[in-house]
């Protein structure tokens, strides 16, 4: 940590999918940030990063959402979220405004403050005091935006290496897209299916019992495929493991009681 006295004020970018599908991911992110000495707040005015509009070519709507998000996170030293894709979108805001537009400068400013959670902990805070245990072998999927736009590759692995009992078995083509692609998976369902089928094979072949990644969109896609194929591999977001928040069943697994029962059986 740069300064033991200083407690960075972090605005949590929750992300739509964590908010709606898997609040545990947002709670785990908060826990990790607090463990790393940050003060975490959750700005009310945030919704979505705007990616669906951006990737559908609707620049006007994207700009409106960008302005709202920029305002929502004014005054925070850092903006951190559990997704390379959504934080990557925050980084694109600067491209939405013309040179000389005051919003451009504000967007650039947001870009400099916005981080994906594992990259923030490792690159910005140099934090690695993970106190968690995971009894299993995981394999890690590198989601595209985090990997290629934000350079997230070693950071999650570095943090995972601090988790007791956890073993990492890399799969083949860990860096190949899973076929989610936001609206792509519903616009081109059969191509997306081929891509996620390939992924599912590589995941199985790794021999891992848990698939871990840093983006819920990709995880929902891959978990949904693994479950449809009747595979026993479970899927979890990396922060759940790092924060030791494993009370919820893994993504797409049966409800808690049944889950506990099944585990016993």
């Amino acid at each position: 940590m740069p300064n033991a006295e200083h407690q960075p004020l972090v605005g949590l970018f929750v992300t739509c999918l964590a908010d709606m599908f898997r609040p545990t991911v947002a709670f785990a992110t908060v826990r990790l940030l607090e463990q790393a000495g940050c003060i975490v707040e959750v700005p009310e005015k945030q919704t979505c990063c705007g990616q669906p509009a951006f990737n559908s070519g609707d620049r006007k709507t994207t700009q409106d959402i960008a302005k709202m998000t920029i305002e929502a996170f004014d005054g925070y030293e850092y903006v951190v979220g559990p997704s390379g894709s959504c934080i990557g979108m925050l980084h694109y805001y600067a491209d939405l405004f013309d040179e000389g537009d005051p919003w451009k400068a504000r967007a650039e400013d947001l870009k400099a403050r916005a981080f994906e959670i594992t990259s923030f902990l490792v690159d910005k805070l140099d934090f690695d005091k993970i106190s968690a245990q995971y009894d299993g072998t995981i394999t890690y999927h590198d989601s595209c935006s985090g990997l290629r736009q934000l350079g997230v590759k070693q950071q999650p692995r570095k943090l995972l290496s601090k988790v007791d009992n956890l073993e990492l078995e890399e799969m083949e083509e860990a860096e190949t897209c899973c076929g989610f692609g936001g609206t792509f998976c519903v616009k081109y369902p059969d191509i997306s299916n081929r891509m996620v089928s390939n992924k599912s094979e590589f995941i199985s072949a790794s021999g891992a019992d848990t698939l871990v990644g840093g983006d819920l969109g990709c995880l929902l896609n891959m978990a949904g495929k693994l479950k449809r194929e009747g595979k026993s591999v479970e899927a979890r977001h990396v922060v759940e493991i790092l924060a030791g928040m494993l009370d919820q069943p893994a993504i797409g697994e049966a409800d808690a009681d049944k889950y506990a029962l099944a585990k016993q059986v």
Partner: protein
Amino acid sequence: MQIKSPEFKENARIALQDVGLQKALGNLKAGFPVKRAAAVERMPEFEDLRDQARDLKNHILENLDIYLEQFESKVVENGGHVHWARTSEDACKTILDICQQVGAKTVTKGKSMVSEEVNLNEYLEKNGIEPVETDLGEYILQLREDHPSHIIAPAIHLNLEDVSEAFHKHHHRPKSDDPAVLMQEAREMLRKKFVAADVGITGANFCVAETGSTIIVTNEGNGDLTQTLPKTHIVITSIEKVVPTLEDMTLFQRLLARSATGQEFTVYNTLSTGPRREGDQDGPENFHVVLVDNGRSEMVGTELQDMLRCIRCSACMNHCPVYGAVGGHSYGWVYPGPMGSVLTPQMIGIENAGLLPNASTFCGKCESVCPVRIPLPKLMRHWRENEFEKHLSPKAVRYGISGWGFFAKRPALYRWVSRSSAWFMKKMAGKKGRINKLPLAGGWTDWRDMPAPEGQTFMDQWKQGKR
């Protein structure tokens, strides 16, 4: 070539079920990307070269008129001719005129994607001239009345059985499954054509302004025979291929082969500088260069200018998971993969090619391997914006996005939608933890389950003080 880009989805659906094609695509994936990675690994300065190549291309594009005029005057000085073709029709007509002037009956052709772009073969055939493709892949395709599905490995969609079948049918020889025998057969057939041809047509990888030279890089040597044996050599290429000097050309050569096939260098690198001079032992008597525009000059000065840096290495498609799933023919026109998804809308209109720039997850792999650092996802997004502005995107997308945008701009409403959806989906899933069939999301649940939400949204729980 008939435009089939509007049927991209149907093409892709069929391609995904084509067992032979899928086998061939598997070979591609295991080949080029692995070899490229090894070649890059062996060359520590590769990333620096990519920067240099990007910068040099940008410089060229900013001074395109100057370098093209320099190239033209050098070609003329060397005794050759330069023809400017604004459209495909202009290019075909120019070439036909030259062929007719020399009384040509057959022409041999080296591999040229620009000639595919302008649909040259069909035009020549219609006018009584027989074009013979001499690149092995192109030759196979010509026998099968097929088209390239890849810009450097045109017959990559075929397997050995297909080639064996085509040769047996057209060469009237015993059927063989031995690549060496097939190769020998093609050689024998083509040798006669090389000698008989009145005109040789090749493309050009680069046009060198300081010397007026064109260069082709090949691995088969067919290009050399195509351009040295006939009396007339016609080069058909496009305006963005010009480079200032021979030394500049070598920068691109170093990147091209490594990015394409993972070779350090292609086997043949053949320069043509004007017609045969007095005392030369070989070479054509007439040398023509046809410079095709076809919408390229309109890209200069726009966001699409970056696309003109392309050196046609094919790395983007070799690494693209969408291309790898559906193959090149699905794209429905000459240029497939990410580079095609950017170029095709410019050349045949976004109204015909709108599905192509949308057929990407924006995974960014293409940009990460592009030797001249073209921001391909950004340019595909440019077309999506263009499509959206022109109200060409499907109604479902337009209404869907504006409806969603209405809520996304209003946090309280958005909370309410998230809350209701989480509750509803949780209810649907019951204790299973996932949903097999979700109304309005058939694209998802036809192929995979929808994992159920936990139930309450994060925002609600956070407000209630849960930590």
